[in-house]
């Protein structure tokens, strides 16, 4: 065990991304952990092989997954929330 500093969002992100495989161009990288950059939409990705790079959270990237989950055309009109 060790003491380290994270934001709550980072704790949530890291519980998901640890061990996930992301494509850096054509090369598969295994994510060790991520750090969120304050006041930007940037994420610093630290890989298990020691490589480090930045990404924007709102951009789309390729991951190695069991089943792809793409956006698709809606089949029903937009559902409006219930305003209290």
């Amino acid at each position, binding site marked *: 065990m060790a003491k380290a500093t994270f934001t709550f969002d980072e704790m949530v992100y890291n519980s998901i991304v640890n061990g996930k495989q992301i494509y850096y161009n054509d090369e598969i990288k295994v994510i060790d952990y991520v750090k969120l*950059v*304050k*006041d*930007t939409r940037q994420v610093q990705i630290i890989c298990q092989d020691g490589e480090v790079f930045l990404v924007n959270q*709102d951009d789309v990237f390729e991951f190695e997954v069991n089943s792809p989950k793409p956006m698709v055309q809606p089949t029903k009109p937009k559902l409006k929330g219930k305003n209290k």
Partner: protein
Amino acid sequence: MKLGYKKIIDEMSLDGTDSNLIITDNLDLNLYDDITSIENWYYHYIQNGICSDYLQMRDRVRDVLDEKKWSGCTSTEKDIIIETYTRETNKSISVANTEKILHLIYNKGMSQANAISFLQSSFANFHIKEIEASLKRAQSYQLFKVIAKYLTISDAADFTRTITTPYHLYTTQGIRGINDGEAGEGLFDFIESTVGTSYETTGLMQQGYIMANGDSDATNFIIELMEVLRKGNY
């Protein structure tokens, strides 16, 4: 930086306008009288717009203050220092504010409560001008020219999206960075990857943009950006 006024050699030396004012680091004392002072920076800025904006004039005032020190300033100079919300670079905010309050009490006849209120009002008035100057710099022709010099449009768009929040804080509140004010991390820290901040390893240099002018890295890009944003040379 020095402020000079053309020496009166004969009646033809002055053309009746203040174009005989000069701002330079290397003042030729054979041609110009050195009129560098807190009062002259302040009043010539207001009357003749000799600085690019209010913050640049404030920088000039602070430079003189750093040499003279608060204790060496006249009462009028102290009034200007209070109005421009500046202090000696190496003096803490609390010490500077105490000195200002004492000046208002003993030299201006204010009560302590009125002096504190006056200081707060001075900050509010200064802050409006600070924001105006920051916005001018952020939307200046010179800044966009620098960006066009070093970045492709695609990278410029990426840069713009990445700094959206720090840019917004800069243009609406004048928040610049830990070395440029008291409001914490800001846009300047991202641009300069300031050591000890969130952007030390995630700032402009770390984006890896290919410089459109052929530079091997963003060093010169950063310098030219800060000429506009920090120094107000635009």
